[in-house]
């Protein structure tokens, strides 16, 4: 008997009991669907995080000086600049950053979502922002604590009709002259987004908010130097503070890595849980196959009396289980893709940027393979039971 005959026979048996086959497959369908959607979500999340981080610049380090701990010492801006200069084989640019709270006013209108940041002259280079018109923040602005600012495209378009240079706005009650406008970072600049921002000299910002400068963004020559760069900065800061609790050095690429590995762990755990349903599905198949073997005892006896060898009976039942399971797997894949498409749409509109739930071909192939494999695995026991039936007893079974 050829293997194709066994397939034909299996399909015939599946066709004659569609409802039962469907219920048998349900565990596999749900399992495969769940695995596909979860892996797809994980991939989507991973991609989303990677994209978000690379827009922040994976070659940047952030140094935060907390001043907490036992130390009363501090590090000056000049010391930080020197530190970068001394380690120029790893480090390239540095900019202090000062967050200014207290809102922006343009023509008497209070803007609540606009962010104001005090920055150094290299900040736009670090961030890969381009000045579209006017100029950036210069050393002179910083040195003299000038009341000048560079604004994002959203503000320029919305409040200054696209020609903001030379106009004025107020931050914290103080008047600033717009000296430059940045290029839009997205095709549709929106309120509260990257393009809804005001940048002023860090020295002015520190004075305005009455704080010391305690945060720096530093770029590396290459993101491969993340660990070296971090080490030199930490060593130097430890020497200054004598206490490792007073500062922290965070590398974006390391953060991305730890985020991605966390997402991966999460996905593995969830996919593992979903895979348990595959196991349950497999047991369901075994259960129904055992029932089926009992129901078809007489058929097995007849087949044996007509000359079926044990191997043929074994093949017939294993193939039936595998076809059932693989069919369930295929259905699960189709449903999983459908659900992924829906999830993509929902997630994209929820977070307001493109989010793709895509399990990828390899995960799908694996899911299909596993479901067929489960059929073979869990079909084996019932099939062997069938194959080993005593033909005389099987013939007289009713």
């Amino acid at each position, binding site marked *: *008997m*050829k293997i194709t*005959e066994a397939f034909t026979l299996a399909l*015939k*048996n599946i066709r*004659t009991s569609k409802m039962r086959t469907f219920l048998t497959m349900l565990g596999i369908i749900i399992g495969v669907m769940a695995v596909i959607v979860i892996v797809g979500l994980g991939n989507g999340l991973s991609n989303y995080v990677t994209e978000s981080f690379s827009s922040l610049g994976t070659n940047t380090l952030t140094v935060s000086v907390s001043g907490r701990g036992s130390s009363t010492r501090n590090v000056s801006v000049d010391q930080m600049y020197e530190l970068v200069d001394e380690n120029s084989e790893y480090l390239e640019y540095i900019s202090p950053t000062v967050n200014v709270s207290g809102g922006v006013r343009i023509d008497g209108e209070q803007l609540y979502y606009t962010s104001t940041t005090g920055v150094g002259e290299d900040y736009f280079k670090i961030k890969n922002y381009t000045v579209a018109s006017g100029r950036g923040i210069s050393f002179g602005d910083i040195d003299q604590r000038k009341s000048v600012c560079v604004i994002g495209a959203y503000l320029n378009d919305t409040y200054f009709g696209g020609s903001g240079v030379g106009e004025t706005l107020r931050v914290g009650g103080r008047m600033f002259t717009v000296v430059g406008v940045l290029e839009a970072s997205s095709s549709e600049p929106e309120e509260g987004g990257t393009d809804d921002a005001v940048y002023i000299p860090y020295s002015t910002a520190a004075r305005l908010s009455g704080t010391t400068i305690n945060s720096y963004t530093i770029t590396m020559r290459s993101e491969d130097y993340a660990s070296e760069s971090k080490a030199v900065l930490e060593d130097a800061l430890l020497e200054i503070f004598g206490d490792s609790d007073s500062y922290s050095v965070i590398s974006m690429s390391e953060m991305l890595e730890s985020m991605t590995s966390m997402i991966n762990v999460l996905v593995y755990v969830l996919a593992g849980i979903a895979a348990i349903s595959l196991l349950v599905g497999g047991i369901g198949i075994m259960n129904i196959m055992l029932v089926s073997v009992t129901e078809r005892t*007489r*058929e097995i*006896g*007849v*087949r*044996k*009396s*007509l*000359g*079926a*060898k*044990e*191997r*043929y009976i074994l093949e017939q039942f294993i193939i039936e289980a595998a076809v059932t399971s693989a069919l369930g797997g295929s259905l699960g894949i189709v449903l999983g893709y459908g659900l992924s498409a829906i999830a993509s749409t929902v997630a994209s509109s929820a977070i307001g940027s493109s989010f793709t739930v895509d399990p990828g071909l390899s995960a799908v192939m694996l899911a299909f393979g596993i479901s067929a494999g489960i059929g073979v695995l869990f079909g084996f026991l019932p099939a062997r039971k069938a194959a080993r039936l005593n*033909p*005389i007893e099987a*013939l007289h079974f009713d």
Partner: protein
Amino acid sequence: MSALIEFQKVSKIYKMGDATVVAANEISMRIQKGEFVSIVGSSGSGKSTCMNIIGCLDVPTSGTYLLDGRDVGSMNKNELAEIRNKMLGFIFQQYNLLPKLNILENVEVPLMYRGVPRAKRHELAKAALEKVGLGDKLRHRPSQLSGGQQQRVSIARALAGDPAVILADEPTGALDSRTGREVLAMLQELHNQGHTVVLITHDNSIAVEAERIIRLEDGNVVYDGPSDAPEAVVTARKREKGAVGQ
């Protein structure tokens, strides 16, 4: 010439706990090619045991069974399956057709296990069904046919592979007497065409359809001879009367 079926002191002993049942007690017999033989006896006399052994569904506890000169007792399960497939055609009391297959597919089953290619299989199965007068119902399911028609399908299935022996186990047991006679006539016809037919029955009136009768009692052969001899059916009755008289 050597016999097609030869039993040499064939015994079958069933052990049930402490008790042992001797279902066949050193039975020796020979059935030649082309014979029509009835194996007859009352319930529990050992007919099914003999039929299982002849049909290679079971092997003797002791003694030798030669089928066409080959020792069946030394064969493994696979070899037995192959012998059943090639040498034997079974006709069962309950027809034992596969309900999910149409009757053409049913007749094809033994041919499929033999590895006959699809087209050839169709041809042989169709020819066998035409021979039993069901050539116009090839696509019918067994459940759509009457009992007599179903038994004819099972005869076609037994015939299709052109086996050396046709083994019929109470083939008329589930049929009314008229349909039963038709089936018996069909077996007679097969015998006339040169097939070897072994008919197993408890019913003397059916057993006499064969040309030879082997009568079993408690696992022993008590008569082996022509069916038209007076002792063929009388032996048992005499004994029964004697038993009643005691």
